[in-house]
C-alpha cells in the first residue's frame, strides 16, 4: 500500500510538472527559432531579445551603442565578431525583431518619399514630446547679465572684475557625436552654479554702487532710489521692474509680493537692499532658465501650452542672438503684435541682420558639422614646410565662422551654395599658404575649395601625419548626412598596416584593410570610405596635391603615388551616384535630400538642445519644404530658420 502511495504521488507530481512547465514566465530568448513574429509584437519581442542578448555589452536599449545598426549589419556582426559567437543561435526573425526594436529607439524622423518625390520625414499625429527646461548656457548667461547691466548704464559691463569672472566660468561644452563640441543647456554643476552666483554678485555690487543719477533714472521707480535709503515701497517698485526685465515677461502682483517678502530685509543698508533685489532676480530660476509655462493650455491636450507673446519673443531672441529680447521686441510682446505673421517676419529678419546673430549662426554650424574640434595639429617640421601651426586652429575656425555667417546672413544662400561656395576670409599667413592665396576677406578661392568640406578645418580636424579617408568620410557621413555609424569594436585598428616592400597609396591601403568582403568591417566602411576617398587630393594639412608623397623615416619624400578621388556612393540618395572628386561630391551634397534633411535635424537639435523626436517630424517637414522650394530666392537657409520659428510647434510648451 505504501508503495502505491509513493507511485501515486510521484505520478501526480510528474503530471503537474508536465502540465505547468509551459506556465513559467515567458523568456523571449527561448523563442523557437522558426517563430513567425507579427509586426505588432515584434518590437516588444525585439526589446526583450535585446535586453537578454545584447544589453550586457551594448548597454540598455534607450542608450544603446548600436542604435544606428540595421538588420544587415547586425546579421553580419553576429556571424563574424568573435565576441558575438554565442548569439549565432538566434534566428533570422529574432535578429529582425532586434533590429526593429533598435530602429524604434532611434530619434525622430523616419524617412518617406513625399508626393513630389522628395525625401521627407514621416509626419504622423503623435503626442508632443516634452519641452525640456533649458538653462541659460554660459554664452547666454553672459549676454543676459550684460543686457541687465545695460539697463542701468552701458559702462557697467566693462568692469574688469566681472569680465575676469566671466573668463573663469567652467566650461559648459562637452564632446558629443564623436567629434563635435556642444553647449549643454541641461547641465548643472556646482562649480557652474557658484560661478554664476559670483558673477551675479559682482553685478549687484556694480548696480548698488552706481551713481545717484543712474539709480534715480531706473524706469518705473519714481526716482525713489535716489533717496538716502530704500523704503519698502521703493524696494517693491524696484524689484518689480528688475523682475520684468530679468524674467523677460511681465510679473504678476503675486510674484512681486513673493519677491518682496523673500528678499526684503529691514536690517540691510541701502546698498545691501539694492543688492538683494538684484540678486533675487538674477539668481531666480526665472532668470537662469528659459521657462515657458505660463501660457494657456492647448485645446484637446493635457500637458501642452501655447507660449505667451513674451515667452515667444524670449525664445526667438535667445535662438537667434543668444541673448534676451531687446526693447523693440519687448514692446512688440507687450502689445501682442509679435504674434502676427507680418510683424514676426520682420522681426526675425531684423534679428538675423543684427551683429548678434553672427556668433549664433557660427555656433549652429560648429555644432552641426564640428569644424572647431581637432584631434591635434601635430605635424613634423619637414611636413609643415614652414607653415606655423600656432594659431592655425583659430584661423581655420574663423574662416568657417565667416563662411557660414556671410552666406546665410549676408548672401541669403541656399543649401546648395552653402555646400559649394568658394567664398573665404583668410586671416593668417599659415592658412593663406595652405590655400596658396593671400590673406583677405571675402575672396573667391579656386574651384578645388568649393564648399566647406574642402577647407582646411574639415580636412585637418582628425588628421594625423597621414590623411585618413576613414575619418574624413566619417565627418561627412555622420555630420553632413546624419548617418550615425556608432563606435568601432575596441580592437579595430586605428592606423593602416605596413605592407612591407609594397608601397601603396592611402586609398589602396584603406581599401585593403577595411573593405574585405565578408567581414563585419565592410558594411560600415563601404559607406564611410567612399565619402573620404574624394578628399585624397588634399594632404593631412589640407594642402592641395596631385600626387601622394611617401615619406621615409627621416621625413624626406621617397616617392610619389597617383591619386584616385573617384567614388560611387548611395549615401546621398537611394541610388548609387558617381563622383569624380570632392568638388563633384560637394555639388552632389548640395543637391541631396539626405543632406538637407540632416541640416534640418541639426537645426532642430540646436533649437531644442536635444535629439529630435518622432513628434518633431511634421515641424521638420515644414522647414524642409522651404529648402525644397523651386524658387532659389525662397529656399534660403535663412528662410529655413524662419520657417522653424514660424511653425506651430515652436510656440508650444509640453511638460
Amino acid at each position, binding site marked *: 500500500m505504501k508503495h502505491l502511495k509513493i507511485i501515486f504521488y510521484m505520478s501526480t507530481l510528474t503530471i503537474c510538472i508536465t502540465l505547468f512547465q509551459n506556465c513559467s514566465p515567458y523568456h523571449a530568448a527561448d523563442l523557437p527559432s522558426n517563430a513567425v513574429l507579427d509586426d505588432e509584437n515584434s518590437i516588444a519581442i525585439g526589446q526583450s531579445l535585446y535586453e537578454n542578448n545584447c*544589453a*550586457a*555589452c*551594448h*548597454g540598455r536599449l534607450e*542608450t544603446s*551603442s548600436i542604435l544606428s545598426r540595421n538588420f544587415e549589419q547586425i546579421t553580419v556582426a553576429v556571424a563574424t565578431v568573435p*565576441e558575438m559567437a*554565442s548569439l549565432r543561435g538566434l534566428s533570422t526573425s529574432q535578429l529582425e525583431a532586434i533590429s526593429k526594436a533598435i530602429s524604434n529607439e532611434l530619434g525622430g524622423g523616419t524617412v518617406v518619399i513625399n508626393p513630389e518625390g522628395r525625401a521627407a520625414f514621416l509626419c504622423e499625429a503623435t503626442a508632443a514630446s*516634452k519641452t*525640456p*527646461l533649458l538653462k541659460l548656457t554660459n554664452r547666454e548667461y553672459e549676454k543676459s547679465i550684460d543686457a541687465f547691466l545695460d539697463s542701468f548704464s552701458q559702462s557697467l559691463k566693462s568692469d574688469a572684475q566681472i569680465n575676469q569672472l566671466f*573668463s*573663469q566660468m*567652467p*566650461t*559648459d561644452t*562637452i*564632446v558629443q557625436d564623436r567629434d563635435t563640441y556642444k553647449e*549643454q543647456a*541641461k*547641465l*548643472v*554643476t*556646482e*562649480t557652474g*552654479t*557658484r560661478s554664476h*552666483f559670483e558673477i551675479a*554678485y559682482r553685478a549687484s555690487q556694480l548696480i548698488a554702487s552706481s551713481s545717484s543719477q543712474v539709480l534715480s533714472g531706473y524706469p518705473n521707480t519714481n526716482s525713489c532710489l535716489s533717496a538716502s535709503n530704500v523704503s519698502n515701497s521703493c524696494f517693491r517698485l524696484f524689484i518689480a521692474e528688475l523682475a520684468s526685465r530679468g524674467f523677460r515677461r511681465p510679473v504678476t502682483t503675486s510674484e512681486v509680493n513673493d519677491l518682496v517678502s*523673500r528678499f526684503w*530685509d529691514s536690517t540691510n543698508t541701502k546698498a*545691501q537692499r539694492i*543688492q*538683494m533685489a538684484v*540678486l*533675487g532676480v538674477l*539668481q*531666480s*530660476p*526665472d532668470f537662469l532658465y528659459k*521657462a515657458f*509655462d505660463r501660457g494657456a493650455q492647448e485645446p484637446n491636450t493635457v*500637458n501642452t501650452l501655447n507660449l505667451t507673446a513674451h515667452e515667444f519673443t524670449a525664445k526667438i531672441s535667445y535662438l537667434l542672438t543668444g541673448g534676451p529680447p531687446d526693447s523693440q521686441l519687448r514692446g512688440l510682446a507687450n502689445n501682442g503684435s509679435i504674434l502676427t505673421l507680418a510683424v514676426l517676419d520682420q522681426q526675425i529678419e531684423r534679428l538675423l541682420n543684427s551683429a548678434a546673430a553672427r556668433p549664433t549662426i557660427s555656433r549652429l554650424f560648429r555644432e552641426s558639422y564640428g569644424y572647431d574640434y581637432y584631434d*591635434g595639429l*601635430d605635424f613634423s617640421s619637414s611636413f609643415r614646410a614652414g607653415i606655423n601651426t*600656432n594659431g592655425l*586652429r583659430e584661423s581655420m575656425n574663423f574662416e568657417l565662422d565667416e563662411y557660414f555667417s556671410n552666406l546665410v546672413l549676408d548672401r541669403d544662400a541656399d543649401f546648395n551654395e552653402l555646400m559649394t561656395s568658394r567664398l573665404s576670409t583668410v586671416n593668417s599667413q599659415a592658412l593663406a599658404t595652405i590655400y596658396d592665396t593671400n590673406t583677405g576677406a571675402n575672396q573667391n578661392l579656386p574651384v578645388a575649395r568649393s564648399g566647406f568640406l574642402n577647407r582646411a578645418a574639415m580636412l585637418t580636424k582628425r588628421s594625423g*601625419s597621414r590623411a585618413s579617408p576613414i575619418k574624413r568620410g566619417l565627418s561627412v557621413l555622420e555630420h553632413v548626412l546624419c548617418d550615425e555609424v556608432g*563606435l568601432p*569594436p*575596441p*580592437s579595430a*585598428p*586605428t*592606423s593602416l*598596416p*605596413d605592407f612591407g616592400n609594397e608601397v601603396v597609396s592611402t586609398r589602396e591601403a584603406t581599401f585593403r584593410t577595411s573593405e574585405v568582403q565578408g567581414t563585419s568591417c565592410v558594411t560600415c566602411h563601404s559607406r564611410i570610405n567612399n565619402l573620404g576617398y574624394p578628399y585624397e587630393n588634399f594632404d593631412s594639412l589640407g594642402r592641395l596635391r596631385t600626387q601622394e608623397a611617401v615619406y621615409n*623615416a627621416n621625413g624626406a619624400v621617397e616617392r610619389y603615388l597617383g591619386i584616385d578621388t573617384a567614388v560611387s556612393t548611395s549615401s546621398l540618395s537611394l541610388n548609387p551616384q558617381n563622383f569624380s572628386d570632392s568638388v563633384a561630391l560637394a555639388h552632389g551634397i548640395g543637391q541631396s535630400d539626405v543632406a538637407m534633411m540632416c541640416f534640418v535635424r541639426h537645426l532642430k537639435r540646436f533649437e531644442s538642445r536635444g535629439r529630435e523626436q518622432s513628434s518633431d517630424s511634421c515641424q521638420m517637414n515644414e522647414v524642409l519644404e522651404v529648402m525644397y522650394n523651386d524658387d532659389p530666392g525662397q529656399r534660403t537657409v535663412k528662410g529655413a530658420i524662419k520657417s522653424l520659428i514660424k511653425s506651430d510647434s515652436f510656440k508650444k510648451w509640453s*511638460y
Partner: protein
Amino acid sequence: MSIKFCKKTRRQFLMGTGKSILALPLLPSLLTKEAFAQSMTVPRRLMFFYMDHGNINEIWPNKNLATQAVGSSGARERLLSSIGTNLQVSPVFRNARYASLINSNLLTILRGFDVAANAGPAHGNFQLACGEGRNSEGNYPSIDSIFEASSTLYPAGTTGANVRKALRASLGGTDIFYQKVGSSIQGLPVYRRNDLPTFYNEVFGSLTGGTVPPPDMTNQFKSNILNRVHASFTSFSSNRRISADDRARLTQHMDYISDIQRSFASVVPPAGPSCSRPAAPPDSARSNSLEATRAYLDLMAIAFKCGLTKMAAFGFDAHNPQWIPDLGFLNGQNFHDAVHGSQGNQNQEMALRNWWRYNADLVADRFLAPLDEEEGTTGRTYVDNMVTTMAAAGGIHNLGNDGGHNGRDSQQILIGSMAGRLRAGRLTVMPNSNNRNLPLNCFLLTLLNLMGIPQSEYASATPDGRGFGYYAAFGNSHPFRNRFYQPITEVLT
C-alpha cells in the same frame, strides 16, 4: 660553574630611578609617527591617473610571487620591497622615486580583477573608475561624480568657496565623465589640451598673492542671499508646469545652492596652507601634448597641496602619442594598433611598457615630487596621506591576446596609504576561482571606502542601491558573488 646573584643596593635603585625620570621627556621622540598623526585630521584625497589600454601581465610582478595568505578568502600578498629593486618589480618604475616609494612601503600593486562586462569590451566597466567613452554600454555615473557630490568628503560648513570638488582633464580623446540626474545620466565637461587656460583660471582664479584673506561679512551676506534664493527654487519647482526630469535637475541645482550657501556660512575660512597663484601655463602648451601633460600634472599637484580639491582625474594621451620619445621604435606605426597586437607580441609589450614607463616618469617628476614633503605636522608626506592611482582601463590580458580591453585579470597601481588606511607596500593578489577573478567593482568600492564615502552617497548608482558599478554581466553563478558589494578588506587597515 657558579651563578652570581646580582643584588642591587638601595643606592643603586635610587640612582637608576632618577636617571629614568630624567629620560621621561625624551620618550615622545621615540613614539611612532602614527601617534602624532592622530592628533591632526588629514583630508582624504584621491588622484586618478587613467591609463588607457590597461596592462599586460608581462610588465608586472608574477602573481605567484605573492605567497603570504591575507584575509580568509584566498588572497595572497608579498611586500614589494622583498621582490627586489624598482626595476625588478616592474620595468615601468625606472624613475628613482619609485625605488623610494617601494622601500617606504608606499607603492601597492593589486592584481586579479575582472574588468570585463560579460565577454565584451571592458571600456564599459572601467568608466566607472574615472570615465571613458562608451558609457552607452552601462549608463552609470562615474565614480568622480560620487566624490564630487559627497557631503562627507566636502562638508558644507567647512568647505571653502574656492574649492573645486573634482578636477577632470584628459589628453586621451573622448573621455566622458557622468553624473546621475534623476533617472538619467549627464555627461560632464573635461578639460583637454586646448583648455589649459580655462582650467587654470577656474582652479586658481581665486588665489591672491599668498595670504589668507581675513574673514569679513561678505560671506555672511552671500549665505543670507543664497538661503533666500533656495526658497525661490523651491517655489518654482513646486508650482510650475514642468516635467519630472526637469524637477530632478532643479533639485540638483538646489542642492548645489545649499552647498554653496553653507560654504559661505562658515565665519572663519577653513584652515589650510596659504598659496600663491602659480604661474600660468605657457600658451604653447595648448598645442603641445608634452607641455600640456606637464602643466596639468603640475597644476593638479598644486591644487591638492593648496586644498583646492580632494579629487582629480587625468587621462594620458593614449591613442597615438607619437610625441613620446620612447615610442620612436614604432617608426610612425600607430600606437593604438601596436598595443592591440597588430605588430606582434614583442612590439605589443614594448609599446605598452614604454608608454607606461614614460608616463610613470611624468607622474613621478611632476606630480609626486612636489607632494613629497611633510604635510603640516602629520609626520607623513602629502603622497603618503593621499592615494594616487594609476588605474588601468580594461586590460589586455596577456601578450597576443587582443581581447579588446577584455581585462579578466587586471591590476591597479596605488601610491600612498591614505594616512595609514591602506595596507600599502604590497603585491596583493585577489582570490581566483574557476578562472574567474574579483570584479573590478570591488576595487572601486575600496576607493570609496578609503575616501570615507558612506553607501548612502552612492546607493543611487546601481539599481539595487547596494554597490557601485555594473554587475549584471557577472551573473548569479559567479564564484565571488558574495563579495560583489564589499570593498577589498584585505588591503584596508
